[in-house]
Structures are given as C-alpha cells and as structure tokens.
C-alpha cells in the first residue's frame, strides 16, 4: 500500500494528467455534437468500408444467380411485349375485354453446349419438354435469331443453329419490307449469311437492317443482321445479298425459346393446302 502511494506520488504528474485529460475529453465529447456524432461515425467509417468490400465480393459470387434472374425477367418482359400478342379482332366482337391473345411465349434457357465451326452446328439448351418446349420452336437471344429446336427431351433440347445448312429463316429488309430467305453463307464464317430470293425490283442499300418477316416461327421484327454486300445480278429474277449476322454465335450464353401458339394451326393449314394441290 505504501509502495503504491509512493508510486503515485512519484509519478503524480502523470496521474494528474490522466484525471484532467479524461475530464476534458469527457466534456469535449459530451458537449460537442459533432465529435459526439463522429465518435461513433469514425468507427462506422471503418466497419462500413469493410461491409462494402464484403458486399462487393459477395455480389461477385452471386453473379450467376443474378444473371439467371435477369434473363428470366427478360423473358417475362418479352411475354408482355405487344408484338408477342396475336390480334384477336374476331373475338373482340364477342368478348369486349380481350383485344390481345398471346401468340408467342418466351422461355429462358441457358446454352450448355454450342459449336460454330462445323458444317452443321447444334446448340444444346437446358430446357426441355417439361418446360413446355416443343420441336420446331424458334430460338432467339437478345441480339437476334439463334435457331430452331430440333430435338426435345425432358430436360434438355437440341437447337439446330442458324449455322446449319438446312436452316432457312424467312427474312425481310427492314425499310422496304421486301421478303427473302436468309441462310448461312457457304464459306463457314459464323458472322456472315446470305439473303436470297428478294425480288429484283427493289433497291436495297448497304447497311440496311434485315429482320424476321413474321411468316414462320418468330415474331415479326426480330433482328437478323445488316446488309454488307450486294450482288447485283442483272437480268435475273432475284437479288442475293450478303448479310452480317447480328448474333455472335461464339459467345452465346442465354437464349429465349419462342413458342408460337398458332404454329401448329398454321402448319396444318399449309400442309392441307399442299395436299390439295
């Protein structure tokens, strides 16, 4: 005890300093709202920063989920697009409520296998008959037309890519609505296609957009590419032109399967007409 007292008196300056300093700081923090606020906030500056860092890391880990979610949302939004509805004017007279009846339905799918460098390319997607996909459905992505569903299993489907010798897409020039057939160019370039059978009387220009015509599986106006090269064959009946594809097939991640609800009806009707001929 005596030693303690001796110690305190020996270093009394320091102990006095402690007492007065604590008193002053107590007054300071208590009566100055700014320091009072920052005393807690400076701690929050550190923790907040750490939390922000962690959030950044975590968000990176959840990128995949987020992608899935966004793609789903896109499909949902496409379902609400006006162009995916069939104008049911006949019904309108009977039921005044419904003007539109859904014609095209979109299902999001992830590309799990893909090829671009073969003569006939196929894409595998992770949706099948369980998700309402049927053979013959069109497949698009945000940039344009991807292909046609050719085989369907319960959980997976194989899509006949546009980069396939048998794939033909009914296309039209965006400006003058001239219809032709788009097919893959012969030289195995995954960025080029050939637009054939456009009637000779129209004057397409380079850079003109090529979109789907709406005559087949896809809704009207899905982009296909741009005209890059004209082959003016004078005297012939039809024009051929080269088209740069808008879809980059090398980096296909997500696609939407388009189910045309009236495709069967249309195909049946056209088949009957062929039979009659």
């Amino acid at each position, binding site marked *: 005890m005596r030693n303690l007292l001796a110690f305190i008196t020996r270093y*009394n300056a*320091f102990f*006095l*300093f402690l*007492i*007065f300093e604590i008193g002053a700081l*107590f007054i*300071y923090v208590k009566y*100055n709202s700014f320091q009072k606020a*920052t005393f807690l906030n400076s701690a929050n500056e550190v923790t907040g920063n750490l939390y922000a860092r962690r959030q950044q890391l975590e968000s990176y880990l959840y990128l995949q989920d987020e992608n899935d979610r966004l793609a789903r949302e896109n499909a949902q939004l496409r379902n609400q697009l006006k162009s995916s509805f069939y104008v049911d004017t006949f019904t309108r007279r009977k039921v005044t409520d419904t003007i539109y009846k859904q014609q095209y339905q979109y299902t999001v799918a992830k590309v799990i296998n893909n090829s671009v460098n073969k003569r006939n390319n196929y894409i595998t997607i992770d949706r099948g008959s369980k998700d309402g996909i049927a053979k013959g459905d069109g497949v698009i992505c945000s940039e344009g037309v991807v292909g046609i569903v050719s085989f369907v299993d319960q959980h997976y489907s194989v899509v006949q890519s546009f980069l396939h010798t048998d794939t033909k897409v009914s296309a039209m020039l965006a400006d003058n609505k001239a219809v032709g057939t788009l097919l893959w160019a012969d030289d195995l370039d995954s960025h080029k296609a050939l637009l054939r059978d456009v009637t000779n009387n129209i004057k397409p220009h380079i850079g003109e957009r090529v979109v789907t015509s709406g005559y087949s599986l896809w809704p009207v106006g899905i982009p296909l590419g741009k005209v890059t090269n004209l082959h003016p064959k004078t005297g012939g009946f039809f024009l051929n032109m080269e088209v740069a594809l808008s879809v980059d097939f090398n980096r296909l991640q997500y696609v939407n399967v388009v189910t045309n609800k009236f495709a069967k009806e249309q195909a049946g009707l056209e088949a009957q007409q062929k039979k009659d001929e």
Partner: protein
Amino acid sequence: MSRTIIINFIRFVVLIFVQVFLLKNITLYNLSIPYLYILFILLLPFEIPNILLFVLAFVMGLSIDAFYDTPGLHAAACTLLALVRIIFISLTVQKDGFDNDPEPTLSVMGFRWFLTYATILTLFHHFFLFNLEVFRFSEIQYTFSRFILSSVFTVFLMLVTGLLFFRRKERK
C-alpha cells in the same frame, strides 16, 4: 509570493483578452491560427506544485473554450501541455539552483532555452488541439499544414512578447 500571484492573475486576464478579442480574428489564409494564450501556462513559476499547474491549465483551457464555443477542446490540449511542461522542465532544469520563484521567461532563461521550450510545448499543444478539433484522419494533410503554420505563428508571437517584456537586470 503575493506578487507572483498578482502578476500571473494579470497575465491570465490579459492573455485571455488578447486571445479572444484580437487573435481570434487573425487567421492567415485560413491556415495559421495563433494560440498565444498558452504562454500563461509556459510562464508559470518553476516551483509551482503539479496539482496547481494542472488546475490552472485546465481552467485556462476551459476559459478559452467558453469563448470559442468548444467545451473541453482547449482544456484537453492545455492538460497535455502541462504534462509536457513538467517533463521538459524536469529534464532540462535543476530546480534547486533558483530562489525568489523564478519563472521560465525569456529574460531569465536565455534565448536558446526559451526558444526550445516554447517550440516543443507549442508543437505538442497545437498537434493535439488541431487533431482533436478535426477528429478524423481523412483530412490529415490539411490538419498538418494548419498545425505547422500555426505553431510557427504562435512561437513567433511568444518570442515577440518575451522581447517586449525583456528585463536585463532580472537575473540576480
């Protein structure tokens, strides 16, 4: 003894007046702010008891705080200043050699000692004061330039004051 008390009391009042009514309005480029009032703590006699020194430093700081609307800020800085003063004096001065309550003024201790004394104590005081006032590390550069320039200004004013009240014959 009573003369010392009176002198220090006058010094206390005058320094507060000078600080509050004159120096508070002097700020060079918003960077250099003189705090001459700490001269009061610097000039207290050598023989003052520690407890009295701390009380006076604390009261001085609080009085300035009352005018600056920053309760506790200058009191905390002055308390630190008192500790530094005790340590500095115990390291550099033999107390036994003095009589008649000598004070650590410029005229008693000589220019070199007083300059070191004033500089070191001012640096400690200002460093603590400015950092406590800003209370964050993000503006450390601005705080540092303010601290250095203000210290230079304060020490300059201290030397001027010391020379104004210089009395050659005081050393007996």
